[in-house]
Structure formats: structure tokens, C-alpha cells
């Protein structure tokens, strides 16, 4: 089966611009998660979808971040306007029935805000 796909793999944008990251989970996986690693820090949870519904967005840094999951399929994470501290690697992961027995992660999107 195809894995979790993230696009783009890299993005360099200027402070104040908008960027949209996309994640295509494994087909049939209802649970989709976004995580982020900023330089020198641990990977941290951002939010969790079950199908198209947000179950937990407690990790979203602020209201400049907006995540959507259209029709319960792919998900987008938009950062508007981007700030320097938003730089990092954004990972998407999916699981079939909760993540209790493991997730499949995508390769990540490396975002650099200059």
C-alpha cells in the first residue's frame, strides 16, 4: 500500500507570506495527526483528525495555523502569516484505528521562514 505522502518536501518562504502543507494519509486511515519538530527540540503534537472532524487541536501554536481535512481524506495545514519561529519540519501521520498500536509517518515538509 502507498504510504503517507506529504507535499512539498521543502518550502522556503519569507516572513509574512502564506504557506499550505498537504498530507495524503494511507487510504482507509480515519485518524490523521500533525506533528512538528523545530530546530533542536522534540517532535511535538499539533492536532488530530478523525475523518473530517478535529478531535484535539491542543498543540496548535496559535491562530496563524489552520488545519483542514476535506471529506476525511487529505489534510492541509496553512500558516498565515508565517513567522520565523514557524520554521521546522512538519510531519503528518495516519493510523487505521487510533494510534495505540502505531502510526505511519510521512517524510515531512521542511519549512524555512526567512
Amino acid at each position, binding site marked *: 500500500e502507498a504510504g*503517507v505522502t506529504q507535499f512539498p518536501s521543502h518550502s522556503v518562504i519569507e516572513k509574512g507570506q502564506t504557506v499550505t502543507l498537504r498530507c495524503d494519509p494511507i487510504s482507509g486511515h480515519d*485518524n490523521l*495527526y500533525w*506533528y512538528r519538530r523545530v530546530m533542536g*527540540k*522534540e*517532535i*511535538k*503534537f499539533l492536532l*488530530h483528525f*478523525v475523518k473530517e472532524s478535529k*478531535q*484535539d487541536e491542543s*498543540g496548535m501554536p496559535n491562530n496563524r495555523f489552520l488545519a483542514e481535512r476535506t471529506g476525511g481524506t487529505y489534510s492541509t495545514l496553512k500558516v498565515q502569516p508565517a513567522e520565523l519561529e514557524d520554521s521546522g519540519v512538519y*510531519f503528518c*501521520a495516519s*493510523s487505521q484505528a*487510533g*494510534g*495505540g*498500536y*502505531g*502510526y*505511519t*509517518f*510521512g*517524510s*515531512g515538509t521542511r519549512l524555512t521562514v526567512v
Partner: protein
Amino acid sequence: TQLLEQSPQFLSIQEGENLTVYCNSSSVFSSLQWYRQEPGEGPVLLVTVVTGGEVKKLKRLTFQFGDARKDSSLHITAAQPGDTGLYLCAPVGGSNYKLTFGKGTLLTVNP
């Protein structure tokens, strides 16, 4: 707030050596997952441990979950260059199974 510590932070060894890396917390885990991450890739699941005292083996990798479910270890026997990577432990928490990652142990196995 759960404190999660992985040690050592860096480890460089020669091919054929054995090693153990540790994951410790101030909290009790319901379950814990170990992942390995290579440069430019996302974490890849190695194992999930659920029961206190549980031991799981994956070829040359042995995972142990502490009796009190507050710590875990990963032992690699006869390490190979292909074992090089960042080893991450991640307790699973909450009804949505979100992960809390440690900073990881960066392992380099030299040929």
C-alpha cells in the same frame, strides 16, 4: 507535565558492538512506542509495548518495558551500520493516542 528523558543523547560505536539506550519518565505510561528515524524521513515504528515488564524482540533489537511502566530500554546486539539513526521513544497518551516524543538517541554505527 510529563518529563521524558532519553539517554545517551549521542552514541557512536563500532560494528559488532552491543548497546543499550534508555527512556525514562516521571510519569506512568499506558503504553510506549519506539521509532527509528533516518535523515530526511519520518519516524518508522519499531514496536509498541503495553504491559509492565514486557519484553519484545525484533531480530537483533530487544525492547523492555519497566515493571512500573515509567521507563523502557532498547538493546541492540551486534550493531550494524544499517542500525544508524535517531531512536525515539514515545509514550502514548490520552483517548486520542497522541504521542509525546523524547529528544532521541542519535546512534552511529561505524563499519
